[in-house]
């Protein structure tokens, strides 16, 4: 059987890739995909732990995370479309009307 620590290592790696992508990429869609990576890293963690602990709560949490991530995707893409209609860009550095 694959030990739990491998799953946690995989999860930590995916989560770090997500954070790195979010902080370095400047395309909104890719930043958004990085956030999805972070959420899925958490899902890997929870499912592995839930199996290891023989406890169902972790998997229940995963169900909620998947459902919420879907809602988040709907709203995020709606916001991106609203911006694209007004500004015709998906580059965050160009969306900087307010600062200071």
């Amino acid at each position, binding site marked *: 059987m694959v030990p739990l620590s491998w799953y946690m290592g995989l999860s930590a790696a995916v989560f770090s890739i997500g954070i790195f992508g*979010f902080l370095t990429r400047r395309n909104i869609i890719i930043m958004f995909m990085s956030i999805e990576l972070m959420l899925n890293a958490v899902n890997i963690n929870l499912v592995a732990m839930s199996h290891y602990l023989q406890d169902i709560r972790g998997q229940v949490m995963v169900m909620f995370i998947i459902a919420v991530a879907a809602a988040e995707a709907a709203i*995020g893409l709606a916001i991106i479309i609203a911006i694209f209609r*007004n500004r015709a860009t998906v580059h965050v550095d160009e969306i900087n009307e307010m600062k200071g």
Partner: protein
Amino acid sequence: MDLELWNLAYSLPELVMTGGSLFLLLLGVFRSGRHTMSVATLLVIGITALSLRNVPEGVTFSGMFVVDGYSNFFKWVFLVSAALTVLVSGRYLESRQENHGEYYALLTSATLGMMVMASAADLISLYVGLELMALSTYVLAGFLRNRTRSNESALKYFLMGSFSSGLLLYAISLMYGFTGKTSLTAIAAAVSDGDLAGNPLVMVALLMFVAAFGFKIAAAPFHMWAPDVYEGAPTPVTAFMSVGPKAAGFAVLARVFTVALEPLQTEWTQLLSVVAVFTMAVGNVIALSQTNIKRMLAYSSIAHAGYALLGVIAGTAEGLSSVMNYMMIYAFMNIGAFSVLILLDRQGTDVEQLEDLKGLSKTKPVLAFLMLIFMFSLTGIPPTAGFIGKFYVFVAALKAGHTGLVIWAVVFSAISAYYYLRVVKLMYMEAPAPEATGPVEVSLSTRLAVTVALAGVLVIGLYPDILLGVSMTARQLF
């Protein structure tokens, strides 16, 4: 407190709010007139408040949902801020041709999310409530679809908000991995039994909890989104966002830290102390250089999060009840200040620059006086409620032995007087700009909101026992 599998009586206010929110969504399709929608929303909030008065206290839904004095008090804060926001929204949205029914449905579902957060006794229900609140407020921030600044505000809020919930989830998964529990009380027991206080991964989880909740309450260094989001969002939404989600953030932050992470109290006290001082410094110092009022109030809201954190850091029952008071008082004074800005609104253009307030005492003396009271209250000058709020937070922190922190807080609060009173100086000591003499929009509901906020600020300021009595009894049931 008896533990039942499920008992709907405990969650009656939430059920009413859910039904009401769906009803408003439907109503908005058929009749989206401003009066119909406002009255219907106030009705929904009113019925929720009635059911909140009679709700029994206890734990239900397999220990996921707790009703106690603490959660009920926060729910009152949310309902008050939602009701005031409804009152100030109608005219504002109408003048921008954006008066759609779904605005009110989103507002009530955001409020519902906050109510679930306040009652969350489990990390799962906490997450679901938090996301319901956050997703609704992202849309509200971008509600003026055709204005690029509103779009930008929604985008920034969305990106930073989802990033912070990613951090929160990772922290939750680590805590679950180490304790095998998601319930807050069970986590506390497992952490102290398993002696996990020194475990580096538990410390990582703690750091991520601080970061995630720091985002929600706009504490530095997790505050970067706040000024842009507050500036670009529609003003009534800004008023709501600066009060509701912040209070909800404090509700879960205090509950998670004092219940689930209670065994790690020395660690999180140190962390939060650094965050609090940094928050007060950033909020107050950067606010000094702002020329846009909404941005200035955003930094002021960051600073206020810093003061309120002192109550959580104190960690005592008294500290918690002082945070509860602070949030209620902050709701009145901050929404009051934003309502004055909305009343000054000139047919679809926001009054945003500090310059626009020049000589207001000559052109609109009543509004200038109201703004003066709210600015005094935000500074913390007696006899306004702002003074009472700060006073009890500082006393609680002093009693818990955090003298150094209180000294910092007092110093920064003295600095804050500069930018709050600069508004007063502009209104009372400068001549009005020639073009600034347009008539004030007569919006009865906005005036009602300002009056309620003013009454809240003055009554709590003069008779603090009313509020203190409620929150004192409330915190004993925590």
